[in-house]
């Protein structure tokens, strides 16, 4: 049978020679192999002192975007929740009242929007499903916590503050956007 990798070796039951039987050359060889590792670069990244560099299109915790006027883009259509394979997203929709035009872009908005970060698998399908460019995954990580409840992120944590906009342009390049609209 032809081997797949060309790395297979036939097993032999030949008698060991004297040098092999006293094991000392093998032991000394082994000692030098481990000694070499003393001078190798450490693989450890000392988080949180050091951070492993993450790509600009890293799929970390989510952000709910506002439009250029500072109004929330989300219309609570629920497509992200349907797309979510882990069923991590829930929301409650609400009608926009008069005088709230500066807060919400469309007539309908999400009064409650929750993502359970313990269920989320950070696949990015919510982002792909969103017709309003409202939800994006960011470079940020979800920090640890002692309570399970604290992993359910509401709008207070997800919606980007007006004063501190989150840059998602790297996940929003022309190819990505055009692919999204062509697929639809």
């Amino acid at each position: 049978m032809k081997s797949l990798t060309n790395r297979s070796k036939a097993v032999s039951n030949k008698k060991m020679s004297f040098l092999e039987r006293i094991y000392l050359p093998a032991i000394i060889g082994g000692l030098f192999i481990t000694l070499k590792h003393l001078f190798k670069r450490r693989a450890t990244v000392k988080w949180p002192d050091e951070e492993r560099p993450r790509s600009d299109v890293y799929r970390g915790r989510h952000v709910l975007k506002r439009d250029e006027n500072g109004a929330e883009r989300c219309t609570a259509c629920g497509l992200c929740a349907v797309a979510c394979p882990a069923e991590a997203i829930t929301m409650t929709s609400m009608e926009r009242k008069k005088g709230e035009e500066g807060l919400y872009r469309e007539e309908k908005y999400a009064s409650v929007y929750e993502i359970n970060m313990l269920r989320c698998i950070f696949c990015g399908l919510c982002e792909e499903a969103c017709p309003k460019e409202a939800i994006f995954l960011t470079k940020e990580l979800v920090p640890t916590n002692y309570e399970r409840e604290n992993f359910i992120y509401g709008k207070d944590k997800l919606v980007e503050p007006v004063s501190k906009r989150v840059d998602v342009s790297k996940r929003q390049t022309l190819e990505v956007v055009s692919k999204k609209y062509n697929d639809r």
Partner: protein
Amino acid sequence: MSTLLIIKTVLILIVFGITLGIAMYSTYLERKVAAFLQDRVGPDRAGPWGILQPLADGGKMFFKEDFIPQKSEKWLFILGPGIAMFVACMTSAVIPWGGNLTLFGETFKLQVANVDIGILYILGFLSIGVYGIMIGGWASNNKYSLYGAVRASSQMISYELAMGLSILAVIMTSGSLSLGDIVESQHGGQWNVFYQPLAFLLFIVCAFAECNRAPFDLAECETELIGGYHTEYSSMKLGFYLFAEYINMFISSAIISVLFFGGYNFPFMDDLGLSENAITLIGVMVFFAKITFFIFFFMWVRWTLPRFRYDQLMHLGWKTLIPLAILNLMGTGAWLIFKDQF
């Protein structure tokens, strides 16, 4: 006389402190060496580079619950780690740490007790060391502990034979049982390792086995015996067992250096033209450098070799090391007679 008494007392205290200190930092070194050999960083949180880690570990040990099993032999259970620790500390008494030092008009040797039978003393105390493990394992009234203790003690007794026989060859060439004389006989680069390489090899293998270190650490193996003889121990009693092991490692390294690597002797020590005190102090430092190297070697081997199976261990001890040691002994004897003839 009284100055000598004070000096010796001070020396005992220093040796005791150094022994404990080195054993303490061996635990740190062990973790660091293990980490470095595996491309990791190791403990680095307590103090710079983690050098306060042993203190943190010791503090942790003290604050753990000191549990004594109800069905154990209470006094023997407490005695076990005590014996292990006591024996480990006693062996440092006869090791010559350096040459002669002159202080306050009094010349004395940097050795607590230069007894004529230093090496016998060490072998004797090593044999008592088995009792600490055996009593602790038996008194726990736990099958795993007992089995671990049986393994450890049968291993130590088996390898003591080969160890004694390999030391005999060294004693024959140097003609003395006193460790001080053995070191003096290696003065000027005449290290025993060049004359007795086989004895050195046998001795170092046996030293690994006596210390219950990898690849001979069959007494404690998680999957089969949980912790071996110290399964039931907790808190500082466990700490004593582990600590005794590190002290034994330190003493073994010291004995290897004394018997085979010239102890505090170093090359060209007579050609430097320094005063005797300076030579002695450099000698002490050289001796500790040798000891540190061998402690490192113990750890290096631990993270290189897989452990033996128990039958392989006994096979190596009884069928390989002892015949080799006897052959080496006979060869050394024949050579000594031959040398005298011509």
